[in-house]
């Protein structure tokens, strides 16, 4: 998953994966949208949604045009994208489009995946159309569905491998704190990140901080030292003793907070719910969740 070139970075968000120049920052994000900008100028934007029914690119373009005109924006017209762009997207049905404005032009691609029936709309804004040399490499890395049993997450300096099928429930990226929540069947997954850890722990001891953040009793928390990192673990189960075969019906909550001094951050993983495989899922998440900034 690590990019081989330091000038390129990766972003993985809610099923979409893309490698892009490292100078790009995420400027806008939603569960079905991501926009990058370079020095505050929008460069690339992706919207995606599941497509219902038979796919007809002309109809989709007409619908986009209608919506654009309603907002007083230029309507896109069909356009033949360069062969170098589409060469790496042979698994998809790709349609190019272009729109013209008085001050600048832009182009885009409609990418339909017959395998997962997801339709992605890529808008390439003028800063990138004027320097199109990076577009083929960028498109070659595009992936709209996870290839294995895990969905990658790589954004704002945090990275993890989430179980496939987990649906993003809530997210909040604040200065100093990230909070991301997913749901998968009866399981809730939460990833947290706090920084700068040194400033936080200067004010509050780690255990008190965790108690305040997660509203958990200190009695259930254990502190250990692993590989130079301070790790706080907690496991809680609801209800009284149950026969072993009924244990899977019991509500359980797993929590781990790691203090990673090299990255000056606190990483929190929380998994709760009922059913088998909660423990291994938690361990896998804890193993893959890291900061890379």
């Amino acid at each position, binding site marked *: 998953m690590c990019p081989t070139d330091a000038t390129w970075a990766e972003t993985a968000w809610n099923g979409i994966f893309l490698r892009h120049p490292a100078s790009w*920052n995420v400027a806008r994000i939603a569960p079905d949208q991501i*926009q990058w900008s370079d020095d*505050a*100028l*929008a460069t690339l934007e992706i919207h995606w949604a599941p497509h219902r029914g038979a796919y007809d690119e002309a109809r989709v373009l007409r619908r986009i045009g209608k919506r654009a005109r309603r907002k007083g924006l230029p309507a896109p017209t069909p356009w033949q994208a360069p062969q170098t762009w589409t060469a790496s997207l042979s698994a998809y049905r790709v349609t190019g489009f272009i729109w013209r404005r008085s001050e600048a032009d832009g182009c885009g691609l409609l990418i339909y995946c017959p395998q997962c029936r997801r339709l992605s709309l890529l808008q390439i804004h003028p800063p990138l159309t004027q320097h199109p040399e990076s577009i083929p490499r960028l498109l070659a890395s595009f992936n709209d569905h996870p290839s294995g049993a895990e969905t990658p997450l790589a954004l*704002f*300096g945090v990275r993890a491998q989430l179980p496939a099928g987990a649906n993003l429930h809530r997210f909040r990226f604040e200065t*100093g704190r990230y909070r991301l929540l997913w749901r998968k069947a009866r399981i809730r997954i939460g990833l947290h990140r706090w920084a700068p850890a040194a400033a936080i722990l200067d004010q509050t001891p780690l255990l008190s901080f965790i108690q305040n953040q997660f509203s958990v009793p200190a009695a259930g928390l254990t502190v250990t030292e692993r590989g130079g990192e301070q790790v706080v673990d907690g496991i809680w189960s609801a209800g009284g003793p149950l026969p072993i075969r009924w244990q899977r019906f019991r509500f359980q909550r797993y929590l781990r907070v790691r203090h990673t001094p090299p990255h000056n951050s606190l990483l929190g993983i929380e998994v709760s719910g009922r059913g088998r495989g909660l423990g291994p899922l938690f361990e896998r998440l804890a193993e893959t969740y890291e900061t890379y*900034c």
Partner: protein
Amino acid sequence: MALFSSDSLRPMKPIVDPSASDPEKRVAALACIPMKHAGVAAETLESGELVLIYPIVMRPWLDRLLRRFGRDALSDQKRKIQLDTLGTQVWGWIDGERSVGDIVARFGEFHKLPQREAELSVTTFLRMLGKRGLIGLREP
């Protein structure tokens, strides 16, 4: 201050207006040099955090009106604001020479924060100081 959140979702726009973001303004703002107000005094607490004491800035017409009605002018009074560890650190880096961009880079490097997060933290803090009249921005 939220960078992004699911609470602020907006309906999907088919074509985003690229001219909506103004990179020139951002670059110009980052190049500005923050200057401390001469009338601000700083007290250091035992914890190492700073308390800034600053005169209340009010509009001259309101000041004159209050004096006419025999009330003590608010401009003679002072207010206090306590900075946390990070605020104290950033306040210490405002020396009349470093630009906002320099402070952002230093803050990000010191605390190992992503560039955007550091920029948002520092600029929000500087904006708060500016609103209270504790600092001004000088163009380079």
